[in-house]
């Protein structure tokens, strides 16, 4: 069995060859331990897109005939559509369309320059849908075989699970198909916290405060979110689990309690607290104990965000006269200014590599997403219509979700980190403050 590992992260491409080779060896050995496949890595395969044929599933077991009738429209909508979307947006695969009515053979794959064929079977056994996926290479060998069983409601998650397995098998690491994006929506008449799948599907409400509830932020284990709600008249922090249960409040004893975000390495939460009208960055344990103030200027400090290793915190400060991005150690020391472009910068978020930050930057009176490399100090604007704010990275660093008012209302969008493949994810009422879950699985 072969496994091609592809390095697509631009900063790795620029790294010295020796380093890249060591890293490849490391990744290869890690992948070997997990999946028990041998690996062959060619340097010139690195940026290669894998062409794959993905026909609509056969609605019967691979051996035998279907006994229970199955709704092919439902299979298309809940399974095949999200599966092909995942594959098409993976950045690893390109879907090669086979000529219609021709059996898919190794010869055909070669003729249309496809390396793989994903053979799908979906049928019903009793009350449950059974899904089989087989990844077959151009020599006719099965590289991966997976079977899933569940209610019709589980078909979409099955699609994401299967896409993820494909990517792991051929790219050495999972995709973001199982990730979730938390956001605030006012579609019930109040702003509440909602969740959606990475492709915008399956939008569901998880808070029921009937009061202004905003700024959700995921825990590093994807199990909890911290957010701000005005349900008791003033703004307070709450923690809730991903299914909407287990809600607790985190009483800080100070005002504001906004922009809360979990540390990636400890049980600290960074947030904006205020005493007598002086907003500063604070830390507090997730059980509401051990509050510490990290900044102590007379200016406004806001919007803390942890570096991936938990050692640094980016934040916004008005100390220079306009809101700008700064960075400090997690103890509040060693403060450095990061942004110098324009007169309003906010919402800094670290890419998972820790080398880049995205933030909101005002350009000609509108806000745009700016991506800055912390090592080279270079930055560039990802320009778009309207105002674009509150970026959040996907856990693989390939995507940025953000809010834009380009349609006249605030909606959540997704794009690649270079600004390509833009997709609107929300359409109902207004939606904002996306926060992408932190782990791929």
């Amino acid at each position, binding site marked *: 069995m072969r496994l091609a590992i592809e390095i697509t992260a631009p900063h790795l491409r620029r790294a010295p060859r020796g380093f890249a080779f060591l890293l490849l060896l490391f990744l290869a050995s890690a992948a070997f331990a997990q999946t028990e496949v041998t690996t062959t890595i060619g340097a010139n395969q690195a940026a290669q897109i894998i062409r794959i044929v993905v026909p609509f599933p056969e609605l019967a077991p691979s051996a035998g005939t279907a006994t229970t009738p199955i709704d092919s429209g439902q299979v298309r909508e809940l399974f095949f559509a999200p599966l092909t979307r995942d594959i098409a947006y993976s950045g690893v695969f390109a879907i090669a369309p086979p000529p219609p009515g021709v059996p898919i053979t190794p010869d055909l794959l070669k003729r249309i320059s496809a390396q793989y064929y994903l053979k799908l079977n979906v049928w019903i056994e009793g009350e449950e849908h059974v899904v089989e996926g087989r990844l077959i290479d151009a020599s006719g060998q099965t590289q991966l075989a997976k079977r899933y069983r569940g209610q019709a409601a589980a078909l979409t998650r099955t699609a994401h699970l299967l896409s993820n397995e494909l990517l792991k098998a051929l790219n050495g690491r999972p995709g973001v198909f199982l990730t979730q994006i938390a956001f605030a929506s006012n579609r019930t008449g109040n702003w509440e916290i909602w969740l959606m799948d990475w492709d915008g599907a399956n939008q569901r409400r998880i808070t029921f405060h009937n009061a202004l509830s905003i700024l959700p932020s995921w825990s590093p284990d994807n199990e909890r979110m911290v957010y701000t709600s005005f349900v008791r008249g003033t703004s307070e922090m709450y923690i809730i689990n991903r299914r909407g249960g287990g809600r607790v409040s985190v009483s800080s004893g100070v005002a504001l309690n906004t922009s809360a975000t979990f540390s990636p390495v400890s049980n600290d939460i960074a947030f904006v607290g205020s005493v007598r009208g002086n*907003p500063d960055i604070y830390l507090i344990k997730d059980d509401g104990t051990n509050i510490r103030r990290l900044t102590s200027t007379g200016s*406004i400090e806001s919007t803390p965000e942890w570096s991936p290793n938990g050692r640094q915190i980016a934040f916004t400060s*008005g100390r220079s006269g306009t809101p700008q991005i700064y960075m400090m150690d997690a103890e509040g020391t060693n403060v450095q200014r990061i942004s110098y472009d324009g007169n309003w910068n906010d919402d800094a978020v670290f890419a998972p590599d820790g080398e880049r930050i995205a933030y909101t930057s005002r350009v000609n009176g509108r806000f745009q997403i700016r991506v800055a490399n912390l090592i080279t100090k270079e930055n560039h604007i990802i320009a778009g219509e309207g105002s674009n704010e509150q970026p959040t990275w996907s856990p693989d660093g390939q995507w940025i979700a953000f809010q834009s008012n380009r349609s006249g209302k605030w909606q959540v969008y997704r794009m690649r980190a270079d600004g390509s493949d833009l997709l609107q994810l929300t359409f109902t009422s207004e939606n904002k403050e996306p926060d992408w879950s932190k782990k791929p699985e």
Partner: protein
Amino acid sequence: MNKMSKALLTSVVLVLVVIVPACKTTKKQIKTDQTTTTAQTQVPDIPVQTDTGTTVAPNTDFVDKSAEPTEELIPSDIDELNRWAASKGFIRDAFFSYDESTLDADAQTSLTNSATWLKGKDGASYNLLIQGHCDERGTEQYNLALGDRRANIAKDYLVTLGVDAGRIRTVSYGEERPFEEGHDEASWAQNRRAHLVLVR
């Protein structure tokens, strides 16, 4: 110019400086309410909603006034009280410039006016919630912090004017609760404010 006339001039200027801004009404104030400043001392124990400011013409008609009821405020209806106190100009919001949290002369006048009523016999029984608001042109998270600062600056000013700090709570809504939904300077100006709300 001798010393005497200089002193006289100074005091005239001082009087103008103090009185003129106090008489100035803010944009949203009802123009007909000319009795704002004097009415403060005249309101009865339970505020009475009398006819608003038609003090221009003397009463020369022959309609029997005793057939007209006077409208009284229901003291338990706090929303109505807020509407009434605002319409009378007793409680006034402080407005801010873009990305600013300092009080200009108009904002100070509004708060001075509010402090007077809050310390008076009608206002003394109420507490105050000050909401900090921002316009949509900033970023949301920074604006929540800016709104907090605006609310607290208004609170501090009321406290220096003698309103008990223990009576005042603050909350920031940032740009989450705009008063005007428009995307122009007129709307934005309305949305940059410390909004004073009477509470029990």
